[in-house]
């Protein structure tokens, strides 16, 4: 049985644009570097790569495009040193992945090299939306962070991203099983047609008659752990919005979402964005940076803990009489490649 341990690759997604994914990624990187860790930030925001702008790099000399078009052989050759000690940056480029239309093989090559980078942490800043590329990056990363704000639309998009990621993973798992794909696709349809309305109902319907499929779904679920961060929190109630995602994910996806922390709204962050100067974040110990420091410490701890899976099957279903999966659980990052 493989271990999920020493998590290096963390993806930051959230579905909605403008909720602060890039600045969160940057701030987290700064906090981890303050803890003495070597960090590489990768901008995978394909629709509007701007992490480099936030870091004060206006014209990146090399980007991911150079790697995907094989102009650069090794990913590490794309790393640009930054003004912040301990942080390297790999720049994205507008729609480079869309233009290059990478195959799975290309994505594997990219992701494997990301994991192999010489750093303690690799933070992947995903863009807005739920394209397959983002979902695949997210699913491949052992560390999965979703960012949301208290806005209803942001909550909806955050949940939508998690659901899309889970179903993408399931669809890859059953890529050669047309019936299962059809069932997954039709889930949530009319209950009177006997269609499952939630993952729990799906598992219940598979448990007795399709034990193999059941086991595969359980395996995917067992490795799907998502951490949630609520950004731009102005009061306690804003922070409580995280619980909305938790409740809905529990009810419809049978996923337990962990809250990594809340980031208070902080004018110092806005100043750092407006001035495209990351040093403003490092110099000013604002309330957001203090909260980020707490999140960084939590990530350090989570990254070190060895475990075989995020949740047990019993925890997943809250029903101990469920049959155990018939085969060993494999590392989820590999079984859809």
């Amino acid at each position, binding site marked *: 049985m493989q271990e999920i341990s020493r998590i290096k690759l963390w993806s930051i997604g959230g579905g909605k644009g403008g909720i602060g994914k890039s600045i969160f990624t940057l701030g987290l990187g700064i906090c981890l570097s303050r803890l003495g860790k070597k960090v590489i930030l990768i901008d995978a925001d394909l629709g509007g790569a701007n992490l480099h702008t936030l870091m004060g790099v206006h014209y990146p000399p090399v980007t991911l495009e150079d790697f995907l078009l094989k102009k650069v052989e090794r990913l590490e050759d794309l790393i640009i040193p930054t003004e912040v000690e301990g942080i390297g940056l790999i720049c994205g480029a507008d729609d480079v992945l869309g233009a290059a239309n990478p195959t799975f093989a290309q994505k594997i090559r990219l992701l494997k090299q990301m994991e192999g980078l010489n750093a303690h942490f690799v933070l992947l800043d995903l863009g807005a939306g739920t394209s397959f590329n983002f979902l695949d990056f997210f699913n491949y990363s052992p560390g999965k962070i979703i960012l949301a704000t208290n806005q209803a639309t942001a909550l909806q998009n955050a949940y939508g991203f998690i659901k899309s990621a889970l179903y993408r993973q399931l669809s890859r798992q059953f890529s050669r099983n047309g019936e299962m*794909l059809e069932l997954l696709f039709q889930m*949530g349809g009319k209950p009177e047609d006997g269609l499952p309305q939630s993952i729990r109902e799906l598992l219940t319907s598979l448990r007795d008659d399709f034990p193999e499929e059941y086991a595969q779904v359980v395996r995917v679920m067992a490795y799907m752990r998502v951490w949630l961060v609520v950004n731009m929190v102005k009061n306690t*109630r804003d922070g409580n919005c995280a619980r*909305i995602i938790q409740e*809905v994910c529990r009810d419809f996806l049978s996923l337990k979402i962990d809250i990594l922390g809340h980031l208070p709204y902080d004018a110092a962050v806005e100043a750092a964005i407006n001035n495209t100067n990351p040093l403003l974040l490092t110099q000013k110990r604002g309330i957001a940076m203090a909260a980020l420091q707490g999140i960084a410490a939590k990530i350090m701890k989570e990254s070190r803990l060895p475990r075989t899976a995020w949740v047990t099957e019993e925890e997943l279903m809250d029903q101990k009489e469920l049959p155990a999966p018939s085969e060993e659980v494999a590392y989820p990052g590999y079984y859809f490649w």
Partner: protein
Amino acid sequence: MSSKDFTIKLGQDEISRILGLKEDLDYWEILEDAARGYLRLGWSLAVVDMQGKDLGVDFQQSPDVWSRAMAELSWQEVPAGLAVRTGNASHLLVVEGCRGEGELSRMDREAWQAETIAQGPLGRERHFYALPEGSDIAAVSQVQGMTVYGDGALVLAPPSREPENRGAWRWLVSPQERPPRYPGLQMWRFLREQKLIQTRPGSPADWEPPFWEEIYRVISSHPRILQALLAPAASPEDYYREVAQTAWAAGLQDPGIMLGLLWHAPLGDAQRRPERWEYLQQLAADPPQPPEGTPAPEDGQSAAGLLGADFPLCHQPNSSPEMWRWFFQMMAEMVARLTGESRGDKVLLPPWAQPGGHGPAFGGSAPGLSTLSWAEIIRTPGPAHPLGLDPLKSAPGLTEGQSDVLNTNNSLLMAPCQQELIYFFWKNYISIDPEWAGLPVNQQLTLAHRMAQDFLRH
């Protein structure tokens, strides 16, 4: 189907669940904010379910504790609301009913209308009154189209929702804008006649002060008392002492009338502070003596006389235009002082515009005026009345024909809130002044109109 074609969208039930939870979260947030405000007013609160059962949030604990308890309840998705414990727990008496129904249709508007009013579904209103010290009131009583909430009752307060999505309560006039005051005399007498309220002997609740009209008839011939009533002082105690001393010096030595005068005194705080009652009693029984050398009280110059030659309908031979101007100057200064702002800012009519409920004096919808600026009042045509009223047409004591006199008489003061001001002067000065009470109502209104004009010019 291949995994490449696989697309995901959110189901209606998922979206509804997210939006529903968010709405609940927002709802509990505003309940919490409201709770903080009510606690500042000294109200006793509870969180109740839709059956009215107390869900056990202890508001006597620190805000952190009860806030957490409310947050936990919010996640249990139990429909609930914020309730006020009426009666002595919060010094509140709440009367619920619909305008124009039952006993309320027979009462004058100002007798029933409280300072603090909440509106709920189906046009129901809850009028929040201060409960006089020394009152005992039944928990919940239904009588003649009204529900009266007293000791031990829990009443949903804004912005709580009614059960089964029947709508939410909202403030028409919030307690922060206008704290609850004692019920009007008519309402008070009704509640006592119905035996809904028992008063302890010797307590403020057991005392019924004279109507303002009675007080005014006595003092209208003493401008110095009027002056004292309108003159701000460094503290409420100084103010009451000055009024009592002036009244005593003017020959007003009946303790009952003196107590009534102090009770109605416009710049006092007795009607908001029950603890003032004992002080007023002492002051009325033993008013301070004027210092030696104080001029003797003037005779023969009534409040009507203050109008002087500026008022053609005034027949007072010794009237003094100077005094009249002084009178309005004082009122304007008092208003400015009460609001703490200049004329360009908000207007607040004297607190006796809607009295501590003892008598129907100072009727009219002063709450409407209180929210308007001087500029708005003076502007022609003026803004619509905030409560959607046509004050003179709906004014108790006036017929439509009588109020129409103003429409033909001038064009300056016809905005609804300006009419309100005219009504205010008519009701509280002209109609009860011995000099003018005998004039035809049309002429009284013309006088009131002139008073309002002069008031606004100052």
